[in-house]
C-alpha cells in the first residue's frame, strides 16, 4: 500500500471487505474501540432498532497511537482516520473506517492540502475504506432488551 502511494500507482479509492486482513487489523485498532465505547455511551439504555449512528469519529495518530499500533503494519500505514458506526436492528454494528493517504497526512498536517498531488501522481491522494461488523454478543450494552 505504502509504495503504491509513493509511486502513484494506488487507485483513488480502495474498499477492504470485512474478511480481509486489513479490515480485521483496523477493527482491532484503538480508534475503533474508542468509537464503539463512544457509541455505547451515547446509546446507553436504547434497544437495537432505536440506536443512533455515530459518524466522523476521528482518531489522531500521535506518539501514544504509534505505541498502540505496535507492529501492526496496517495501522502504521493508516495513521489518523475516521470511524462511522451504523447500528442494525439485530444489535450488530456496521463499522466503516475512512482514511486518506496524502502528503498532508504524511507530514501530520504541516503540508497544505491545496498542494497535494492528485491521484495517479507520486504521493497523490488515495483513500481507503475498511469495513467490519461487530457482533451483538461482544458489545457491552445495558439496554436489557429481549
Amino acid at each position, binding site marked *: 500500500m505504502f509504495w503504491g502511494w509513493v509511486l502513484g500507482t494506488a487507485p483513488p479509492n480502495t474498499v477492504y471487505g470485512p474478511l480481509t486482513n486489513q479490515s480485521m487489523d483496523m477493527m482491532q485498532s484503538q480508534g475503533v474501540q474508542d468509537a464503539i465505547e463512544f457509541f455505547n455511551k451515547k446509546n446507553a439504555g436504547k434497544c437495537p432498532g432505536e440506536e443512533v449512528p455515530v459518524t466522523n469519529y476521528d482518531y489522531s495518530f500521535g506518539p501514544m497511537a504509534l505505541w498502540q499500533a505496535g507492529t501492526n503494519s496496517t495501522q502504521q500505514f493508516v*495513521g489518523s482516520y475516521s470511524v462511522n458506526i451504523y447500528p442494525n436492528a439485530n444489535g450488530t454494528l456496521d463499522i466503516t473506517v475512512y482514511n486518506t493517504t496524502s502528503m498532508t497526512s504524511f507530514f501530520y498536517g504541516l503540508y497544505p492540502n491545496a498542494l497535494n498531488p492528485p491521484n495517479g501522481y507520486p504521493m497523490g491522494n488515495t483513500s481507503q475504506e475498511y469495513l467490519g461488523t461487530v457482533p451483538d454478543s461482544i458489545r457491552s450494552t445495558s439496554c436489557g432488551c429481549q
Partner: protein
Amino acid sequence: MKFASIFMVALFVGCSSHYSAGELAGKYVLSVKGGTDTIELGANGKYVHSYVAKSGDVGRQEDTWNLEELQAGSTVVLNNFHPLSGESTRARDSYNLLLVKRSFGTYYLITNIDLNEGYKKQQ
C-alpha cells in the same frame, strides 16, 4: 513511515488546545461540489445546519450541540444530524462529530482529519 515524523508529532502534541463552547459559537461554511453547506453553532447549545445547492434548492435542519474532549481533541457533537437533500453523505440521523482545529486565528470544524478539510468559521 510514521517514525520519520515523530518529532513533528511531538511538536503538535505540545501545541494541542482546548476550546470553550462560547468561543466556538458562530457560523461555519464549507463549499462542496454541489453547493454550500453551513453550520451555525449557537451559544444556547442549538445548531442550524443548512445547505444551499447551486440549483437554488435550500435545505435546513436544527437540533442541539455540545463540546466533548475526545482522543483527537476538542470535538463538536451535533445531535440528530442528518444530511440535507443534495449532500452526498449516507442519509440517516446520527451523532455527527467535527474535530475543532485552529489555524492562524481561524477556527475549523474538520470533516476529513487526513486532509485538514472542513467548515471554516466566518469572521
